[in-house]
């Protein structure tokens, strides 16, 4: 009863491209059911385990002159701490947000890069739930930071830019409200979700295309599969880059939103 529907397996003469169903595998527990504990959930929990294991191992024996593992951990942690946290949020306030940025970046990095690792092979953020949750969490945090720092005045600071002539205000303020409070969390989550989904589909499409072409009788058509393979490898590399890049972009945007809330009175 496993409806594992790779279209090329039909060996028919018509090519059915893989659709969204290739992302929604049947559940692991109960095995093969439509609903239940899915691969996405397993991968999320594994990612937490891997990240925690690596960084606890890297930070367990802290020495002034680091060993290889500690050095690698410090470089990775230092990248998020300094390049994302300190540089964007600024030296005074950034330390409070470093754990969030750190957890976000490595959570996304590993969950995205799953899509490029054989057997894992599913970027978990291609399931929109995870992206919704993380973007929602960030949304709540930056608004919370703004309200805590400026009180209710923050809502005015966030939507009324200074230095704008009064007669443009009726246009600017609605645009600011829409862009900051409505569109921002949507783009934040959908950017991540859509790139992961699209990347996964492109690679899956190339893979099933190769399988379909190889199964054809005609030798020339078989030969075309080599071209598709080259294309698929190039796309795979590009996707791997995008997976890393999107983890960075999501975390960087988080830092920028928080910075905007921390320094709402500065612009």
């Amino acid at each position, binding site marked *: 009863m496993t409806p594992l529907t790779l279209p090329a397996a039909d060996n028919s003469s018509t090519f059915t491209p893989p659709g969204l169903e290739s992302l929604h595998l049947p559940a692991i527990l109960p095995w093969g059911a439509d609903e239940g504990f899915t691969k*996405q959930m397993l991968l*999320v*929990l594994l990612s937490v385990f891997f990240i925690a294991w690596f960084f606890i191992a890297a930070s367990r024996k*802290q*020495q002034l002159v680091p060993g290889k593992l*500690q050095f690698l951990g*410090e470089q990775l942690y*230092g990248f998020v701490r300094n390049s994302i946290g300190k540089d964007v949020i600024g030296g005074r306030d950034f330390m409070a947000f470093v754990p969030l940025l750190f957890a976000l970046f490595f959570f996304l990095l590993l969950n995205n890069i799953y899509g490029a690792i054989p057997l894992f092979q599913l970027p978990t953020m291609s*399931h929109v739930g995870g992206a919704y949750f993380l973007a929602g969490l960030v949304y709540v945090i930056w608004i919370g930071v703004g309200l805590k720092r400026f009180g209710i005045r923050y809502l005015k600071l966030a939507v009324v830019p200074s230095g704008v002539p009064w007669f443009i205000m009726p246009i600017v303020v609605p645009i600011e409200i829409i862009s900051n409070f409505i569109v921002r969390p949507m783009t934040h989550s959908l950017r991540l979700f859509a790139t992961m989904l699209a990347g996964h589909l492109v690679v899956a499409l190339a893979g099933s295309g190769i399988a379909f072409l190889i199964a054809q009788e005609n030798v020339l058509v078989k030969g075309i599969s080599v071209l598709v393979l080259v294309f698929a490898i190039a796309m795979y590399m590009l996707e791997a880059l995008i997976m890393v890049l999107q983890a960075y972009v999501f975390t960087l945007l988080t830092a920028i939103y928080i910075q905007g809330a921390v320094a709402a009175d500065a612009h």
Partner: protein
Amino acid sequence: MHQLMVQAATESASPLVPNWWEVLVTAIGFAILLFIAVKFVVPAFEKTFAARAEAIEGGIAKAEKAQAEASAALEEYKQQLVDARTEANRIREEARAEGAQILAELKERAAVEAARITEQAHVQIEAERQHALVSLRTEVGSMATTLAGRIVGESLDDDARASRVVDRFLADLEAQNAGAAK
């Protein structure tokens, strides 16, 4: 058949509609990770960074202190060198002065000694001269008397008279000498 079922199922569900269980599991997973980051990872790394910064700054401070100590010691040695040089100059000057003084003293002493010896010699010579004079006077007197007695043929041994004659003669002689010396 199965394929149709799955396709029907997925096509009905938009990819934008989340599976709420997945949202929940992501939330739990991320919460665990955030907790670990807050509790263990970030403090551990920050502690190391702080310790390292302190070690470096402490090292710099220590180096600066050592530098200051070294330059102070150098100053001190230079000062000591200058002092020693001054001292040496002073001692040399003193020695030279002392030497000159000693030399002067020695010269003076030698001069005094020479003067004393000269004086002594003079005195001795004078004494000897006196002695010689006295003995001469007596001897010359007696010899002259004897001679004169032989020539005259009589004894002029009347001492008192002879003595007076001799004395008068000698006094004339001395007066003549003194007149010749004039």
